[in-house]
C-alpha cells in the first residue's frame, strides 16, 4: 500500500539551514548535509531544500549543495527556490536532485510548467503554491508570501495540474508558523478536485496535526520544518502514532 509521506523541509541560505517564523526572523539550525543524513536515517520519507539566498553565487552554491546531499543521502529530495528556467532545472537534476519545485516563476510564466514537464517528465516537477484567505477566498501569494496576486488558489492549482505538474506543495500563509495545524479544508478540496499528489505545508505544531491533515485534509504528504529541526517532534514517534491511527506509513 502506498504510504503517506513525512517530509522535513530545510530552508537554505548561503549553504546553511535556516527556518523563519512566517518567513521572516530567521534562526540557524545547522549544516544541511549533516541534517539531511540524520533525517534520512531517522525515518523521513523525503526531503525538501528551499533556497532563500539572494547572492550572485547562489546557483553554484545550490548546485554544490545538491551534489553533496546526493552523495550521502539514500532517500529522494526536492530542491526549490529561485528556479526559473530549463537550465536551472537541468543543472540541479544533473547534480543529483530528484525533483525541483517552482513557485513564483510558474505564476509569472505558466508555460514553464509545460516546458519543464515535457523535457524532464512530470514526475520531477513540483509546483509550490503559497496562498492565504482574503474575505473567505484563497488567494495565491508570491515571493514567500510577500506579494499578493489576483489568482484564486483552486483555479491555479487546476491549471498547474493541466500543464503537467507532478505534485503540488501547498503552503497556507495563514497557518505557516502558527503551530495551530494545517489548512485542512483547503487541502481536502485540492486533494478531491485534483488527481495529483498534494503535499500539505504550514502549521505543524504537534503529532495530532499530522493525523488531521492526512485524514481531514486528505493530504498525500506532510511537510514541516521547525518541529523537526528543534526536535519538538521525533519522526519515529510521529510515524508510530500515525500507524496507531490507521494511517499507512513506512516504519
Amino acid at each position, binding site marked *: 500500500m502506498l504510504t503517506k509521506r513525512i517530509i522535513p523541509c530545510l530552508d537554505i541560505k548561503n549553504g546553511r539551514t535556516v527556518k523563519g517564523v512566517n518567513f521572516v526572523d530567521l534562526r540557524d539550525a545547522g549544516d544541511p548535509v549533516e541534517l539531511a543524513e540524520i533525517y534520512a536515517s531517522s525515518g523521513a520519507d523525503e526531503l525538501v531544500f528551499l533556497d532563500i539566498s539572494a547572492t550572485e553565487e547562489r546557483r553554484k552554491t545550490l548546485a554544490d549543495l545538491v551534489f553533496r546531499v546526493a552523495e550521502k543521502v539514500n532517500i*529522494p529530495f526536492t530542491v526549490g527556490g529561485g528556479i526559473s528556467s530549463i537550465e536551472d532545472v537541468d543543472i540541479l537534476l*544533473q547534480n543529483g536532485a530528484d525533483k525541483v519545485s517552482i513557485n513564483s516563476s510558474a505564476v509569472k510564466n505558466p508555460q514553464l510548467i509545460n516546458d519543464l514537464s515535457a523535457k524532464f517528465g512530470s514526475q520531477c516537477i513540483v509546483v509550490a503554491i503559497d496562498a492565504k484567505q482574503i474575505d473567505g477566498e484563497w488567494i495565491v501569494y508570491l515571493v514567500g508570501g510577500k506579494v499578493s496576486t489576483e489568482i484564486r488558489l483552486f483555479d491555479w492549482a487546476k491549471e498547474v495540474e493541466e500543464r503537467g505538474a507532478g505534485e503540488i506543495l501547498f503552503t497556507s500563509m495563514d497557518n505557516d508558523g502558527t503551530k495551530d495545524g494545517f489548512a485542512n479544508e483547503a487541502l481536502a478540496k485540492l486533494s478531491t478536485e485534483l*488527481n495529483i499528489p498534494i503535499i500539505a505545508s504550514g502549521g505543524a505544531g504537534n503529532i495530532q496535526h499530522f493525523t488531521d491533515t492526512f485524514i481531514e485534509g486528505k493530504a498525500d504528504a506532510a511537510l514541516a520544518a521547525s518541529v523537526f529541526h528543534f526536535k519538538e517532534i521525533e519522526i519515529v514517534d510521529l510515524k508510530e502514532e500515525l500507524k496507531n491511527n490507521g494511517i499507512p506509513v513506512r516504519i
Partner: protein
Amino acid sequence: MKIVIINYGAGNIQSIKFAIQRLGFEAVLTNDVNEILDADKVIFPGVGEASSAMHKLRDSGLDTLVPKLKQPVLGICLGMQLMCNSTEEGNTKGLGIFDVDVVKFSDKVKVPQIGWNQITDLKTELFKDVSEDEYIYLVHSFYAPKCEETIATSDYDLAYSAALKKDNFYGTQFHPEKSSNVGEKILLNFLNM
C-alpha cells in the same frame, strides 16, 4: 568489477552512481559500445518521458546493443519500462526484452504514484535477504501488469510488476538508489550476481 551506467541523456543518473559508491564500488557513466560490452554489470537507468527517452536511445545506437548483452543488466524505472514490448506513454515501441506491455494507471488513483509502497511475492537472487512487504520508493504514471516475468509485486489501483526478470535481464519499477537501506541491499544483490 567493472560497472557501467548507460548514459543516453535520460534523467538523473548521478544518484545511481552515488548509491553504488556508498556500497564501496565505482561505476562509469558511458554510452560507449565497447565499454558497455566489456562491463561485468550494466545499469540501464531512465526517468522522464518514454518516447523521447527511446528516441535518445536510438540516436545513440544503443537500442540494438542492450537486448544482446550477456552480463547481468538492471533497468531502473523508465529503463525497465523501455525493456518491455511497448509502453502506452507516447505509443512507444520498447526493446522487447520483457514480454509485457506497459500501460497507464487509471484515474481511480492519483497519477503519478509518488512515494513509498511495499513489495511482495519476492523471487530470485535480486531480493536475497529482503523481507516481504519491505518499502521501496517509486515515482511513475505507467506500470507493467503482472506477467510470467514478474519477480516482485506492488499494489496501487491493482497488483502490478514492481520488478521483472528474464535470463540475465532484471528491471525494477522502483528506484533502489532512493529506497534507503532496502534499496541498497537490492542494488548490492545485483552487483554480487
